[in-house]
């Protein structure tokens, strides 16, 4: 429990009594901590919203931020910290927007100087701490979901399957391949084979710095799956280190075609397609 019902009422009273002063001073302090990266008007609106919901909560005799009566206050705090997280402010800067309230309260209580001012300040202060911690937690959650969203977007972006030639698609892999990404890429590659009716796929791993057993297995399984579907895969751009890894791990590439570069792979495919129609070729020779 952060503060008693009476203290909570006194906090609401204090805030309500000095509304203009509190809002003014609080906004100034927050603006300083954010070094002018948000407009004064925007900050003032946020501070006023926070101020108002604190008064509402305090008047209802709120003793703890986890209580049901604090739902609105929590919502305002959550919105504030989510906004800060998205705008790229640091956790410290976000929490400062709440903690600066302590300075404001201290200034107000210093003027009053009455009995129990110190006791009140300690109580108010611990409530502000609770608010600050809540802000911090929301901030972390918001950042986490932001990171998860971005990872997903990255997954979408970083796995293009391109048509290289009539009947030939290629997937140039760039960056570290983890198991999840390898799976997504491979599923998309197989789907593209069906959609475009291409019997050849080139998996180019020039841009992949390293592979582990799992990723190598994913690539191998894709090649086998493509064969089951009636398409052939060629792997190109295997770096020397990766070749060493593949041999060291004892991964069997079997009869899968491997080529040094994407260009070599394409040449290989074009030669294959040329050989596939011997009649047409012999007619051309005549």
């Amino acid at each position, binding site marked *: 429990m952060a503060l008693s019902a009476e203290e909570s009422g006194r906090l609401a009273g204090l805030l309500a009594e000095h509304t203009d002063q509190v809002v003014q001073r609080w906004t100034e302090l927050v603006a300083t901590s954010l070094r002018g990266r948000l407009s004064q008007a925007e900050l003032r609106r946020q501070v006023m919203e926070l101020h108002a919901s604190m008064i509402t909560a305090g008047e209802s005799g709120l003793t703890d931020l986890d209580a049901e009566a604090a739902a609105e206050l929590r919502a305002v705090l959550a919105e504030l910290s989510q906004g800060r997280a998205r705008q790229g402010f640091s956790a410290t800067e976000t929490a400062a927007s709440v903690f600066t309230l302590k300075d404001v309260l201290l200034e107000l209580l210093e003027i009053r100087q009455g009995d129990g001012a110190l006791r009140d300040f300690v109580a108010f202060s611990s409530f502000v701490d609770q608010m600050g911690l809540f802000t911090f937690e929301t901030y972390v959650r918001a950042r986490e979901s932001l990171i998860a969203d971005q990872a997903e977007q990255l997954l979408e972006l970083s796995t293009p399957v391109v048509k290289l030639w009539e009947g030939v698609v290629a997937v140039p892999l760039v960056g570290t391949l983890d198991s999840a990404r390898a799976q997504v890429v491979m599923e998309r590659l197989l789907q593209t084979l069906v959609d475009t009716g291409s*019997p050849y796929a080139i998996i180019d791993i020039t841009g992949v710095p390293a592979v582990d057993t799992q990723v190598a297995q994913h690539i191998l399984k894709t090649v086998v*799956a493509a064969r089951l*579907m009636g398409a052939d895969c060629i792997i190109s751009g295997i770096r020397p280190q990766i070749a060493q890894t593949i041999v060291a791990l004892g991964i069997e590439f079997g009869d899968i075609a491997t080529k040094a570069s994407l260009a070599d792979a394409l040449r290989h495919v074009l030669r294959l397609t040329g050989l596939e*129609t011997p*009649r047409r070729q012999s007619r051309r020779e005549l």
Partner: protein
Amino acid sequence: MERVPILKIGDVLLVSIQVDMSDQTAIQLQDDLAERIVATGCHGVLIDITALDIVDSFVGRMLSTIASISKVLDAETVVVGMRPAVAITLVELGLSLNGIRTALNVERGMELIAASRDEDAYEPDGDDADAETTATA
């Protein structure tokens, strides 16, 4: 019990599996196909599994058996239209469908059958084992 229809298009028997087959239906299809190959003298069998959302070991085995039977009866079997999710699952299941030729779609499957008949016709000594049986073709 449902029966999968077998269509004859030129020199090729076309089977398009449109239903979720029970094991009995699969065995029936295997028998029907063997009979139709002999009755029609067709040299190609095209099995379209575009509509199948799974292929389990039973159906996988049926496809392999059909391919082997038709080979004995001098017909080339090509399985076409396997979905990516089905192919990925078969690999995980450990089913390799040995001896089955595959193509992405019916059109490519037809080309594959035509090409393999061409090979027989243009290079009779390319495959000694086949040469005797194709001599009558």
